C-alpha cells in the first residue's frame, strides 16, 4: 500500500464507487485515489445504520456516566435526605433506602460499570492475544502448556472464582475489573490460537522468518495486524459480557462494594422496590440492556466492516 495517495485525476466522481483500473500502471490513467484498508473499513462501518445508531447510544451512555458529574453534583455519599423519597426537583429520580440520591447513584454506577467492562475487555484481549499467538506460533511445548492452562481455567465457573477472590481482596471497582479480566481471556486465546495456526502457514510469515525476523516482530508486526478484525470484534463483544458478569457478581453481593457502586449493585439494593418504586429497578436495568445491546450491534457492524463477505449471513 503506497503511503502517499496518488492525486485524484477525475474529480467528477469524488466519493463515488471505487473503480480500479486493471492494467493501468501510469499515474495518468488512474481514475481513483488509492485508499487505505482502514479508510475502507471505516466507510463500511459508517454505512452500517444499526451499528452507527448503537455507537451513538453507547456514546450517550458513556457521556452520562463520565460527564454527568459536571452537571449533577450531588454526592453519592450524601445521606442527608430521607429514604425512598419520590422523584422531585431536588431528587429527579427520588432517593434510595439510605437517602442517597438515585440520579447520582446511576451516574456513578454507569461510569464504574463501563470502566469495569472496558478494563475487562482490553485486559482480556491483550492477555488472550499474547497467549493465543504464542501458542499458535511457537507450537510444541508452549502450545500444549498454554492450551492445557486454558482448559484448566475453563473448568470452574468464572463467577465462582471471581466471587471468592473479590471476597478475599476487595470490592473496589478496579479489583473487580482485574479479577473479571483474569478469567475472561480464554476465549480470545482460543480464537487467536486457531487463526495463528492457519496464518503462520502463509508465505509472508515464512519470508519474514527467512529474513531473520524475531518471534516478537513476527507476532506484533505480521500476525496481529492480520487478525485485527477478529480481535476488534471479540473485544467489543467482551464489553457486553463483562457488563453482564459484573451485574451478576454484584447482585449476589460479591462484586463491587460500597463506597463504590455499580449498576449490578444498584439493582441488588433496589430490586425489592420493583412494584412500589419501579424506576429504582428499571433505571439501572435499562442502562445495562442498552449498553449490552449497543455493544453487540457495534460488534456486528465491525464484523461486517472488516469482512464484507460475511454480510450475506447475518446471525
Amino acid at each position: 500500500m503506497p503511503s502517499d495517495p496518488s492525486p485524484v485525476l477525475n474529480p467528477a466522481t469524488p466519493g463515488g464507487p471505487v473503480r480500479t483500473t486493471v492494467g493501468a500502471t501510469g499515474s495518468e490513467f488512474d481514475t481513483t485515489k488509492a485508499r487505505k484498508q482502514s479508510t475502507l473499513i471505516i466507510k463500511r462501518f459508517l454505512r452500517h445504520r444499526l451499528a452507527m445508531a448503537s455507537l451513538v447510544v453507547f456514546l450517550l451512555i458513556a457521556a452520562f456516566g463520565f460527564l454527568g458529574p459536571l452537571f449533577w453534583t450531588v454526592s453519592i455519599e450524601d445521606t442527608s435526605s430521607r429514604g425512598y423519597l419520590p422523584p422531585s426537583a431536588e431528587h429527579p429520580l427520588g432517593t434510595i433506602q439510605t437517602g442517597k440520591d438515585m440520579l447520582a447513584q446511576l451516574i456513578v454506577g454507569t461510569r464504574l460499570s463501563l470502566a469495569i467492562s472496558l478494563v475487562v475487555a482490553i485486559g482480556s484481549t491483550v492477555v488472550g492475544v499474547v497467549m493465543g499467538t504464542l501458542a499458535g506460533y511457537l507450537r510444541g511445548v508452549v502450545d500444549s502448556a498454554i492450551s492445557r492452562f486454558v482448559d484448566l481455567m475453563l473448568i470452574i465457573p468464572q463467577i465462582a472464582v471471581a466471587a471468592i477472590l473479590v471476597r478475599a481482596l476487595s470490592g473496589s471497582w478496579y479489583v473487580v475489573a482485574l479479577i473479571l479480566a483474569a478469567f475472561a481471556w480464554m476465549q480470545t486465546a482460543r480464537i487467536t490460537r486457531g487463526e495463528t495456526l492457519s496464518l503462520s502457514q502463509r508465505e509472508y510469515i515464512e519470508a519474514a522468518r527467512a529474513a531473520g525476523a524475531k518471534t516478537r516482530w513476527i507476532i506484533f508486526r505480521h500476525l496481529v495486524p492480520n487478525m485485527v478484525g477478529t480481535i476488534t470484534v471479540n473485544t467489543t463483544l467482551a464489553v457486553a459480557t463483562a457488563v453482564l458478569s459484573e451485574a451478576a457478581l454484584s447482585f449476589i453481593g460479591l462484586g463491587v462494594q460500597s463506597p463504590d457502586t455499580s449498576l449490578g449493585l444498584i439493582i441488588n439494593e433496589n430490586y425489592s422496590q420493583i412494584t412500589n418504586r419501579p424506576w429504582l429497578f428499571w433505571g439501572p436495568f435499562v442502562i445495562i440492556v442498552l449498553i449490552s445491546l449497543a455493544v453487540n450491534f457495534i460488534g456486528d457492524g465491525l464484523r461486517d466492516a472488516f469482512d464484507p463477505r460475511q454480510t450475506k449471513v447475518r446471525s
Partner: protein
Amino acid sequence: MIRYIIRRVLISIPILLIGSVLAFFMVAGAGNPLAELKAKPGTTPQQIADLEASLGLDQPIIVRYWRWLLDFLQGDWGQSIALGQAKVEVFDSVMRALWITARLVVGAEILAIVLGVTVGVIAAVRQYSIFDYLATSAAFLMFSMPIVCVAIILKTYGIQFNNVLQDLGFDRWLSTVSPAEGGFQGSFGEVVFQYTGTYLLPTLSLTLISFAAYSRFQRASMLETLNSDYVRTARAKGISQRRVIFRHAFRNALIPVSTLFSLNAAVLFSGAIITEAVFGWRGMGALLVSSIRTFDPYMLMGWLMVTAALVITFNLVADVMYGILDPRIRLA
C-alpha cells in the same frame, strides 16, 4: 469411541488435580474461617488454638492440602466450619444442593436446546419473514439481558399472576421459593401442580438466556448449510423440500451447535447461581455464596471439585456428540 472416552477421562485426572491445588491455595489464602469467632467477645485464645488444631488449620498449607486430598479421594470431604451450628458433612450438603440445582439446570438446558434449535431452523428456512425478524430480535434482546433482571421480572409478574389467580378463586400456582424439603406431597394432580409451579419460573429464566445463544447459532449454521452446494444438488435431484431441510441441511447444521453445548456448561452453572439467588433456592448457588461469606474451606473445595468434574463431563459429552453427528471427525 470407548477408547477415546477412556483416554479423555484419564487426561482430565491431572487437570482436576492441578485445578485442586490451585483452588486449595486460593481458598486457603482467601481468608480465615475463624476470623469472625476471633472478633467475638469472650473467646479465649486457647479456644481458638484448640479449634485450629482440631480443624488442622495450624498445619502448613502443603500438609493441609495433602491431608485433604487423601481424605477427599477416600470419600471423606471434610466438615463445614460454619459456626454456631452442628458440624455438617461437606459431601452431604454439596450433594443435596447439587440435586436441587441439577434438576433445574438439566430441564432448562433441554428446553433451551429444543426451543432454540427449532426457532433457529424455522427462522433460517423462512429467512427475512416476519417470524425471522421477531425471532432474531427476541434472541438479540435476550442475549443482552442480565439473567438477574430476567429472573427478577419473572418473579414479580409471577407473584402478580398468583394474585390474579387467587382473586379468581383458584389456588396460588407459581412458587417463588425453594422447593420444599422432602419432596412434594399429595395426589398425583397436586404433585404436578406443585412441581410445575415451583420449577416454571426459575427454569424459564435460565432457558430464556440459553435459548438466545442456541437460536442465533442454529440460524446462522442452518443458513450456511441451506446455501451450500450439496443442498442445491439435493434440490436439483427433485427431493422434496421437507426431506432436503431435515435430511440434508438440518443434520449438518447441528454440528457446530454441539460445540455451543460444551461452552454453555459453565455459563449455565453461573446462571443457575444467580437464578437461585433471586428465587431463594437452597441449591449450589446459595451454598457457594454462604460458604464464601464464611470462608468455609472444605465446603468451597467440595463445591469447586464437583462443578469442575461436571463441566469436564459436559465437555466430554459434547465432544462425543460432535463425533456422532459428524463422522468425518475421528475421535482418536
